[in-house]
């Protein structure tokens, strides 16, 4: 996990300038939180205990899920809906893919992140924006979440709201992170171990809701899915 320090150009995490990659950090958080969420199948049955969550996360080897993302903001006349799919392979492989309205694929493996965009020429092109570097930085943080260590992060503090439908609340502790994410809510369904949705608030009027469906655990996943876009 990276060490946070503050310099003239902004917060540095693990030796990286977070200010220069703020957009990527935000993007990484979205992906990372979703990963961590789906990776927490036992949370609903251990809603009082983060330690138990850590143990239960260890049994998950593969995850596949579809997701629907709904963006709300004042400027949008109606919510903007995106759809995609998500794959996870333990210990550190992720494929986060948007299928509409634009096609992008983020591949995470061994701490490295690559992102590809399908462009109008029908070809996949590597994304060269700073967002990708930001994602890599956040993935360092997310490694802890992958292991169920919600309560050990340096960017967020986590609290658990127990109940039939437990909620994990993540609040940014880092100033730079707080600039673009005010809080995150991770909502579990009443079916033990199944995450229903995650909602990321960028302010009271702007939010991103990611709802998971068709979640499959420990099914066989072709390793190539984590290596190449096609």
């Amino acid at each position, binding site marked *: 996990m990276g060490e946070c320090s503050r310099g003239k150009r902004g917060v540095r995490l693990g030796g990286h300038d977070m*200010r*220069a*990659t*703020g*957009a990527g950090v*935000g*993007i990484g*958080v*979205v*992906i990372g939180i979703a990963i961590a969420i789906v990776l927490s199948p036992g949370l609903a049955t251990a809603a009082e205990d983060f330690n138990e969550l850590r143990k239960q996360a260890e049994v998950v080897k593969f995850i596949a899920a579809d997701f629907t*993302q709904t*963006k709300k*903001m004042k*400027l*949008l*006349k*109606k919510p*903007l809906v*995106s759809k995609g799919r998500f794959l996870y392979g333990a210990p550190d492989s992720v494929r986060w893919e*948007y299928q509409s*309205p*634009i096609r*992008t694929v983020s591949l995470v493996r061994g701490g490295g992140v690559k992102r590809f*965009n399908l*462009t*109008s020429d029908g070809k996949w*092109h590597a*994304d*060269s*924006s*700073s*967002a990708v570097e930001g994602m890599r930085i956040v993935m360092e943080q997310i490694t802890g979440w992958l292991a169920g260590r919600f309560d050990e992060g340096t960017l967020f503090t986590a609290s658990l709201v127990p109940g039939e439908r437990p909620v994990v609340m993540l609040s940014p502790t880092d100033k730079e992170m707080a*600039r*673009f994410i005010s809080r995150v809510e991770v909502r579990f369904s009443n079916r033990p171990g199944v995450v229903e949705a995650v909602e*990321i608030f*960028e302010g009271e009027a*702007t939010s*991103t809701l*990611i709802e998971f469906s068709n979640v499959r655990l420990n099914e066989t996943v072709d390793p190539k899915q984590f290596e190449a876009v096609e």
Partner: protein
Amino acid sequence: MSLVHQSRCPVGLNWGLFVASLFLGCACSSPPALTPLPVVEADLLARSCLARFPSGSFAVVHAIEATLPFGNASSVLGVSSWDAKSRTLSAALLAPEGIALFEASRTGGGEVVVTRALPPLDRPGFAEGLFEDLAFLYFPPGHDISVPPRADSPEPATAVFPAHGQGEGSPGTAGTAHLPVPGRYEDGRSVCRWPLPDRTIDLVPAPDGGFAMVEYRDSSEPVRRFEAGRSTSSGHFPLSSRFERSGPAGYSMRFSLVEL
């Protein structure tokens, strides 16, 4: 659709070549020459050109393939809204993951208010430049009142003109706009030209229903160019289009219409 650039100088799109040409004294001092059109044809063309700029208030969402300043290339979602009468604009750029990377608005008087700008989109001048570009895309050049011009008119003429004959806005009620100077390039293509005090803007209709717009400043090298393919059934919004702004901080964006 091909670009409308009709440079008479041996200068390509490359900025370095462009700068070099200035030092070499190339006489790149004006956009391509026009020849006048007959009055009836000119009037129809002018109306057709102004109809490209819908009146009323709109909000659109685009998928954008962006080659941004400072060497970044990425895909984002763009939300823009505008009001043709007040010439106000609002815009947001969203990462595919939903995070708002940039959000700002510009009043009719030109005041820009940035409510959110994540690095590197928080660099000075980015917001102002973006709104200049959006104004270029959505508003007809100029907004004063005068009389119809001719192709050989040296000064920009403006007039009360029914800018729109169709669409979601208020047909024929766009109010005032600079009238374009209709004409023809040497290669025979029809063109509407707005010879404004500080720049010249050419709009060239395409046979497929699309069009191209090019802005010239002090040379025949375009500063901005916008190519639009065929439009929605209302005729206002191109389904796909491409914008390019040249210069050291230049960038290009390819738009695909997602939502109206």
